[in-house]
């Protein structure tokens, strides 16, 4: 099993997330993380999917199935070396006066921010790649984690190339909207 990060550019239409999620469950693909949000372009959303697959053929099948969805404009794999990947974690750690400084010290080591403090707890915000966040959470576990929320992975390719631009350019003949084309041209 290997893990792959797919970036999927989709039309910002109702139900597209359901179509993607349903595709994964129906076809029995292993999904590790799924994050979705709008892009710099109001008509487009971008879905970042982390999948686990047996082999290259399975990854190809996932990619092709995604591409087959009518609202999907572009699917690209973002290799770890050529992309920046981030997750966000919010974690509430048990911390009274005796241990608060130790908790904050660990937060400092991982460049986490303190976003809330209570007499017996501290809430930290940390971003980074999954393994860094895992390491931080392992360190914090000794104090007692009261609550934990994680976002899915989002990722973006390094360098100046833009997936949105490529996606919009390739589909320009029928256009998403004229605005979409303008964005691509002026960028």
């Amino acid at each position: 099993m290997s893990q792959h990060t797919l970036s999927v550019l989709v039309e910002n239409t109702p139900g597209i997330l359901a179509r993607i999620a349903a595709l994964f469950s129906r076809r029995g693909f292993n999904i590790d993380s799924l994050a979705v949000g709008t892009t710099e372009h109001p008509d487009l959303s971008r879905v970042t999917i982390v999948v686990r697959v047996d082999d290259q053929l399975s990854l190809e099948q996932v990619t092709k199935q995604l591409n087959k969805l009518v609202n999907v404009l572009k699917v690209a794999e973002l290799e770890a070396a050529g992309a920046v990947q981030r997750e966000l974690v919010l974690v509430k750690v048990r911390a009274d006066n005796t241990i608060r400084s130790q908790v904050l010290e660990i937060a400092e080591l991982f460049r986490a921010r303190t976003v809330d403090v209570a007499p017996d707890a501290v809430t930290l915000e940390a971003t980074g790649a999954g393994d860094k966040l895992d390491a931080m959470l392992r360190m914090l576990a000794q104090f007692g984690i009261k609550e934990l929320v994680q976002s899915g992975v989002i990722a973006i390719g390094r360098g100046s190339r833009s997936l949105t631009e490529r996606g919009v350019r390739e589909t320009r003949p029928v256009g998403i909207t004229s605005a979409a084309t303008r964005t691509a041209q002026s960028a």
Partner: protein
Amino acid sequence: MPNAVQQAPAARLPRMRAPESAATPSESMTGAQSLIRSLEEAGAETVFGIPGGAILPAYDPMMDSTRLRHVLVRHEQGAGHAATGYAQATGKVGVCIATSGPGATNLVTPIADAHMDSVPLVAITGQVPSRAIGTDAFQEADIVGITMPITKHNFLVTSAEDIPRTIAQAFHLASTGRPGPVLVDITKDALQAQTTFSWPPTAQLPGYRPRTRPHPRQVREAARLLTCAERPVLYVGGGVLKAGASAELRDLAELTGVPVVTTLMALGAFPGSHPQHLGMPGMHGDVAAVAALQKADLIVALGARFDDRVTGKLDSFAPYAKVVHADIDPVEISKNRFADVPIVGDAREVISALAAAVREEHEEGNAGDHAAWWQDLNRWRDTYPRGYDLPADGMLSPQQVIERVGQLAPEGTLFASGVGQHQMWAAQFLPHEEPGTWFNSGGAGTMGYSVPAAMGAKAGRPDRTVWAIDGDGCFQMTNQELVTCALNNIPIKVAVINNGALGMVRQWQNLFYGARFSNTVLHDGATNAATGSARGVGSAANRGTRVPDFVLLAEAMGCVGLRCENPDELDAVIDKANSINDRPVVVDFIVHEDAMVWPMVPAGTSNDDIMAARDVRPDFGDAADD
């Protein structure tokens, strides 16, 4: 990124009916009127449906339409299968219409069926008013959510102005690329609202770019393999029929001299009587066709998808074969069986390009020698021909009935079948010479398919004789559509192969469950105890299902009902059925109940283990091969 996912040119608008209708000035009308106009402009002529509360606004302007014929069916499932039969018989997009809630959910089976068999279908459903969506309003069902996995795409339309564009997109999506069903769910308020109509609307499907033209390099590679292989086979699927590529296929086959196998969905794509035709592969395929794939060193799959009913146990399927896989849908390639040469494209373009490339190979002196291969193939074909035994007790054999129906049918007859033993016998014993004359439910295996599908086919091709080959089990699922046929001048003919049982399930019980016939007996004989189980083979004479009496039932539905119980009267009854053309005809053929479908590859086993008959495994001369 694999290259296969990069897709080329832009989506095109659906073909318009006629050049003069290419642009209409904007007109003010209701959403419902614009729906009817859009259907007309998109080329719909005959539609099948049932009105109800949410779709009611659309039924009012339908009454004034001179271009749209609406056939009022008895059940929405009938509308869906009829639209499927219509589409398969005419090559056009089939259209069915239903109301919200249960009306829409009754379309689920035919939509799933069309999806599995890649049939171009547009299903229009009414939806509760947009403000009521999500409130569990009366007759509300989330049909867009329900049909998401069984449609090529679907739409929820909540605004009248979106109707023409969505209908245009639906027809375009349904009919281009790999065809499939598209559902358009329209809220009642969108149908009632005032809007302006203009046609054609602008297409906005930026993510939809089917690739029809094959990659020349892949085609050349395929041609090279095809001319140097020693034991090649053309494995032809329904995609060849969808692409209208029968003539091209024949050209390629005769050019290369390679044997052809046609799947259940592709019967008729290549003439059944052609000397290069080995028959149907798969679970109930011909021994020679199954063996050809198993022993092949090259399989050229054209519009076929390596379904498990063809491959049997996948990891022992065609162990020596390289695979060239051509399909319009990139997803199918290497989904089940790895393709050494993947070709994405329309079957017609692929096959003609392949033939051209093969001609080039021939000019360079590279032509395969398949003499030894044909020696093997002919030996298998001669040793294990299709056949059946006549019942010892003088009853009708179901195979004989189907064979005679095929032989006595007028030229150009269209055949639809249900699902089960009769379907396999129809696949084996009907003449499949011409493309577009055989309709059945291959992927989904929908019992109850044949009567409504035959109805749709006859509505689309009134000039042709249409026979439905049905089982007594299937027939009892959808026969109410004979009422529709009787009332709408759609005179189909139905051969009920009445063995008083759910035959295929009974066959499996016979072979794999120690002949314990749990709940497969449909007749009212003495062995049909309260539990529904019979006591075993031959424990009572089957007289067919007499409850209901299919002759009386047919008469009650406005059809002619005939019965045939012994071989002496077989031809006379079939001739009589063929001679009646003013009403639907139902013939109740009482057949022997213990007939089995042979050959058979038991589910989940290897095709190497094909049984030509009970306990008879063909001799492929394996020792000589190894």
